[in-house]
């Protein structure tokens, strides 16, 4: 059984500090408006990117994916990959709905 990798407390502490730093970063980033004035998607992208980094750190070190087999890594990321598929085709619908509506440029009034 002891073939399993033992991660040292030092690594865990380092990762925890990184997570705190990233959390501070995401709260800080939310205080600024990023990108063109009429666009709010850039703030979202920054927030998602930071959350993605935090997730990777937790997955790799706390959840030992870095030390596990490739198969584990595939299964660990498979769900997220499927969500990307879901998101892409879902938003293909919502974002193109306004294209064929000449009367109301944005049907959601926003």
């Amino acid at each position, binding site marked *: *059984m*002891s*073939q*399993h990798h*033992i*991660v*040292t*407390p030092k690594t*865990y*502490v380092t*990762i*925890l500090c990184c*997570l*705190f730093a990233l*959390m501070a970063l*995401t*709260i800080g980033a*939310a*205080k*600024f*408006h990023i990108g063109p004035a009429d666009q*709010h998607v850039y*703030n979202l992208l920054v*927030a*998602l990117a*930071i*959350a993605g980094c*935090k*997730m990777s750190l*937790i*997955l790799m*070190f*706390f*959840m*030992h994916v870095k030390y*596990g*087999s490739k*198969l*584990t890594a595939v*299964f*660990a990321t*498979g*769900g*997220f990959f*499927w*969500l990307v598929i*879901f*998101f892409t085709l*879902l*938003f293909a619908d*919502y*974002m193109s709905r306004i294209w064929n509506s000449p009367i109301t440029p944005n049907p*959601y*009034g*926003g």
Partner: protein
Amino acid sequence: MSSAEAQTDNPHLAHHFESVEQQEESCTLGMWLFLAQEVMFFGGLFMAYAVYRYMYFDAWYAGSHHLNVSIGGFNTVVLLVSSFTMAMGVYFCQIGNSKWLFRMLGLTLILGIAFVGLKWWLEYTPKFHDGLFPGSGWGPKGHYADLANFKDQGALQLFFIFYFIMTGMHAFHMVIGFVILLVLMWMTKQNKFGPQRYMPILFFGLYWHFVDIVWVFLFPMFYLVT
């Protein structure tokens, strides 16, 4: 039969596995598949969230600015630390220190309860009290009175529906975690874990870290809409 030979070596080897490695690898894979299914379960909620955020950004902006970033941020710290203590629990189990394993599990439990407690007493209850419960009782008042002037109350309700459902589903997963933690702590007291048998601790850790990851996304999605 090789399984019979192995069984005499290790009481934890189930009859249908040929070796301990096979059993461990199977269980690890099974646990990750369970988590993949959890990703899709929460993922469905995130997709619905994304669609309505895209449709009703103004309501999302207004709603988000009535959530308390300080409490949310503090809770994030609490949860990240609990993830850390859980990871340390796995470490102590691997090096065979049952005493500290027990303490780490206890600490994880306390931090988890703190998270859910703060959420309930400081976030949910005041909102219910001031009319932010979606449905027929909807009617922002008191601390949230200015939300009553928001033009699209339906969209605003949607924000709070998703706030309650998604954070509630997350908290529900944590409560399940509490029960399992209690069982694991009891089993630790019985000396059931050690360097030769730490898989249950490791797997619960995976679950706990997954719940943490969900919060890592929920926090900016609800508290930090800019």
